[in-house]
């Protein structure tokens, strides 16, 4: 069964999770722990930090998340299509065979257009 082959992955995940955790806990035995107010200050190049860093950040960063989601969906579709490609080639229907090129062509043109329109990718 296919699911069975994931058992080692699960075990690996547990070990991989324990590896850094174990390292952090193991270092407790060796390291000192003397927090002072000055030491616990946020690092700001030796100056006293001014203002908060956790601010509402620039919108441009979220644009990437949006574009990424769009491309991700397209990528999943293409991946499934690529898997099925071998079977489709043998099937006689030319529609099934060549519709990918239509899709890819539209995607290519659309991407080019969008990126041309967004002259500089700001951040």
């Amino acid at each position, binding site marked *: 069964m296919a699911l069975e082959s994931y058992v080692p992955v699960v075990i690996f995940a547990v070990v991989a999770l324990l590896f850094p955790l174990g390292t952090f806990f193991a270092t407790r035995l060796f390291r000192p722990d003397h927090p002072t107010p000055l030491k616990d200050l946020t690092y*700001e*190049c*030796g*100056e006293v*930090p*001014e*203002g*908060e*860093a956790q*601010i*509402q*950040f*620039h*919108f*441009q*960063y979220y644009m990437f998340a949006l574009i990424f989601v769009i491309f991700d969906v397209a990528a999943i579709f293409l991946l499934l299509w690529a898997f099925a490609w071998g079977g489709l080639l043998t099937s006689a229907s030319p529609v099934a065979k060549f519709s990918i090129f239509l899709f890819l062509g539209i995607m290519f043109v659309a991407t080019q257009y969008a990126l041309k329109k967004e002259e500089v990718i*700001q*951040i």
Partner: protein
Amino acid sequence: MPEFWINMGPQHPMTHGLWNMKVKVDGETIVDAKPEIGYLHRGYEKIMEVREFQKNVVLTDRLCYVSSITWSHAYCLAVEKMMGIETPERGQWIRVISLELQRIASHLMWLASYGPDLGLLTGLLWALRERELFLDLIQLMSGARMNQNFPRVGGVRNDLPENFEAMCRRSIEHFLEKYENEYQAIFQESKVFRMRTEGVGKITVEEAINWGITGPNLRACGVDVDLRRLDPYETYGEIDFEPQVWHDGGAGDSYARFVCRFNELRESCQIVLQALKKMPKTGPYRVKPPRRAEGEGYAKTEDSRGEALFYVIGDGDDRPYRVKIRSPVFCTMAATPTLLRGNKLADVVSILGSVDVCVGEMDK
């Protein structure tokens, strides 16, 4: 509120020394900048008022440890102007040689620090490797690698050692070979390097002159001003050399500043070779300066970072009444907000690296 101030300094990899560049960013774009200096202020102008003329040379050496000789030379020149004495000819030639060697060493230090600013640590080690050659030459000449205390009021400390000319030629030959083959490849011909430096930190000629930017930074704007030729001191008037001015388009950006400085390395080598050929083989290299002096004297010299100006007033005592140091970096620093505004946060290093900041001389 997407804008906030970021402190770059005093403990920051970008600041080669102690100073603070406060940058206000909106996302990644710089909206405003505010340099804060004075961390390294040592009160030079006050200390120099209580030391004798000759003993101040040791202080001016430490104004900028990267280019000591150019600074102490500027001081000596100003004091000589005040006292009305002149260095013998051979002494002037030795000074020219030492100045140019120091300029090369200083520019190599700048090149070395510009590399890691842009993420190129290899540039640092390569440039420092060749800097050793010139530090060795300076050591041969003056006895010390840094803080040489070499120029004196009335001349230089000592004559050139034997075989200096041959060693100088050999070092420069070796350096120029590396320059043509390695530095050009890693800096100037690198596509990524040009991507990072071209078109950032632009400043127009009018703004640059108005802000008092001098030296290679001004020449990068296309202004043909080199004090070695515009107001010749020592024997620079007899030397045939070409100030490195950026003539192509896109003047005043980081790349132009880089190219001007970078080409000055080669030009300085040519000056040294010329000076070695033209200088008299023997003769006095120092005159005895008077102990006390009255009057005022100023000297402006082409430091490796721009126009260094010393203004010395004596009141008849054996120590100066008032010394004023004009540091080129101090004036450039005033213009940095203009340079930075509108660029990206990552360009701060590309711009401030290219203007070559030396905190010692800036804070005096």
